[in-house]
């Protein structure tokens, strides 16, 4: 039953569309753009024609301007008020749309006023033009009017404050940690130069000792008198340096300390014997 009624309704509406397609349109339409203070720029006054291709130039709208359209809506050429009379604004970049309703009287005469305050922030910050069309429609079988009227350019004169964007669950910007710089080194040749300068002091020291008469000629005499004590004492002094070197290279303190203790003990015991021999030589006047 409902289905049949639907078909019947459809047929009725179809026939009515074919027979008496009452079309919405408008007449006497004028577009004004006026600044609040007089004399600021030239006011725009253009006539809008229904069905035409629209204005050929973009209409500028700065913060002080008011855009106003005055028109009379018609149905089949007679002034009449439609249920829906919107100025449709479309931002081309994002596809965001906003409709602003006309204030109409019953005889179809009416107007709409638009300032920057009426626009969403996305329109104000848009780089592209805003496409403005007129939309007149009503119930029943009347044919709606919807056509491009003009392009609007929102002039940003610095008074527009962009609020921070609202939070959305989406992919966030990547963050890559910025590492601190590695420690800087002086040029290697400077280090090499000073390293050699330091190393050069050893030959200078040995040379000056030689010039002052330093020698090791009594080594054979000393080793002859007490070979065990001298070889152990001098050996333990070298061994102690070797222990320090191994500590520098790889040993830890627990490996170093016992070995250093043993070497130290050897040095202490053998040193007293060796130094006794040295004292003997001194008492013999050989030092």
């Amino acid at each position, binding site marked *: 039953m*409902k289905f049949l009624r639907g*078909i019947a*309704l*459809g047929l009725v*509406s179809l026939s009515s*569309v074919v027979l008496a397609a009452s079309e919405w349109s408008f007449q006497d339409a004028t577009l004004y753009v006026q600044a609040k203070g007089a004399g600021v720029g030239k006011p725009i006054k253009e006539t809008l024609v229904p069905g035409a291709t629209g204005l050929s130039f973009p209409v500028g709208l700065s913060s002080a301007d008011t855009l106003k359209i005055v028109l009379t809506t018609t149905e089949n050429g007679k002034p009449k*008020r439609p*249920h*829906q009379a*919107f100025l449709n604004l*479309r931002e081309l970049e994002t596809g965001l*749309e*906003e*409709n602003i*309703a006309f*204030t*109409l009287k019953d005889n179809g005469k009416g107007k709409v006023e638009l300032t920057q305050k009426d626009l969403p922030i996305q329109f104000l910050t848009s780089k592209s033009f805003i496409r403005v069309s007129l939309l007149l429609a*009503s*119930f*029943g079988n009347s044919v709606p009017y*919807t056509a491009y009227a003009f392009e609007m350019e929102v002039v940003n004169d610095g008074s527009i404050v962009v609020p921070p964007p*609202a939070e*959305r*669950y*989406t*992919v*966030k910007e*990547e*963050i*890559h*940690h910025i590492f601190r710089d590695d420690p800087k*080194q*002086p040029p290697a040749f400077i*280090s*090499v130069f000073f*390293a*050699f*300068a*330091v190393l050069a*002091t*050893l030959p200078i*020291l*040995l040379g000056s*000792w030689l010039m002052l*008469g330093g*020698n*090791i000629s*009594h*080594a054979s005499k*000393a080793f002859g008198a007490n070979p065990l004590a*001298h070889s152990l004492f001098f050996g333990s*002094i*070298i061994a102690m*340096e070797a222990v320090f070197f191994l500590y520098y290279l790889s040993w830890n303190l627990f490996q170093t300390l016992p070995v250093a203790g043993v070497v130290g003990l050897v040095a202490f015991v053998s040193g007293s014997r*060796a130094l006794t021999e*040295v004292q003997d030589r*001194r*008492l013999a*006047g050989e*030092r």
Partner: protein
Amino acid sequence: MRFTLLGLLLGFLGIVSALSATGSSLLVIIEEEADKSKYSQFWADLQGRGYEITYRSPKDTNLSLFLHGEPAYSHLLLLPPKSKGLGPNLTPNLLVDFINGGSNILLALSAEQAVPTAINSLLLELDINLPSDRTSLVVDHLAYDLTSSAEKHDVLLIPSAEPKKGVVDFFSVDGLVAFPRAVGQVLGNASPMLSSIVKAGASAYIYNPKEETEGVEDPFATGSQINIVSAFQARNSARFTVLGSSEALQDTWFDAKVRLPGTDYKAGKTSNKEFAQRLSEWAFKEIGVLRVEQVQHSLDEDTKDINPKIYRVKNDVRYSIEISEWDVDQWIPFNPPTGDAVQLEFSMLSPFHRLSLNSSPSTTNKDATAFSTTFRTPDQHGIFNFYVEYRRPFFTAIEDKQTVTVRHFAHDEFPRSYEISAAWPWISGIWVTIGGWLAFVAIWLYSKPTRDNKPASAKK
């Protein structure tokens, strides 16, 4: 997340044939028994998918959403009541508790009856605004059904919209979906938990048919700002879906013949049946449910030591997380929509790294996708988290946090002094000291006097 998993387990234990990831018990609030038959195809579809449907009237005094303090049902479908309100058992407070308990709600509205104020205020809590005069409906003089609403233009025919970049497309169907006598919703801008499923066309607007004016001058909302179907997903991933037109679920509109006005007179069948299935699948968590399978992190060069508790600064670390998605009746590998990515944050208070992960099929689990990356731990010691937070419209939330310590260089991990060129003069100084000391000891011990100094020793 934990509740979801628990629900999952319970769901599996309860009924194997249940398709929802959270459970199969569905409570339908319908006021008049006679209206039930209007939705018979929808009920049959739901029952075929394994739901145990309980029908109750809002006037039923025994009606309770809770049993022992826990939600008694996994899902709730609220059809528009004929009476003014929903009664004392379905107050906004109880419905919010029901969501907080992890259950899902599908709320269907209709402009045929005035929307109860209780629902108005409930939706306001979620930042969904309905027109304040409770009988308003959406009309569109350019996209209505010529067959059924030639005069009133209140049956909207809406094609599926292009999904937004980076947002999953669960709801698009071929052809037109009819929304008769829809209640339009306006979503607040502040909440990221709200998303729009179906928007009205550019020429639509909301008006109150009871108002005796000839033209609309201050519409509540216009164009694509009007949502016909919208979704709210709570922090616990419970879903609240608002369907502006309950009639869209009725048998009359499943495969109904409709025609758009205009010169081309496009005629065809509605896709309401398919859309109702998609919408209920999403609303009752049959799709878009995510699960973390396995999380692994390790040193990049030593992948045998899995998930160590401690790393050093400037270690190269490999991280991988496996995620699967519930798709009607099985777990499948999850792939984010194009333009979207799963991101890892390596954070201590604030993220030091935030990296998009590369996806690859998991080698161990055929139902999961592995998301992985390698990066270098920052040169800052402390307690860090491997933190993956994936919150997206229409997907349940994923939050995975693995805490590790990042330590300093140990004393034996710094470069050796001979590797530092600036140290060379000092090292050579040490060698000179050693050489000089040994030479001094040798000369002191074994030096022979150069001249006869007996008198000197005799003095002593």
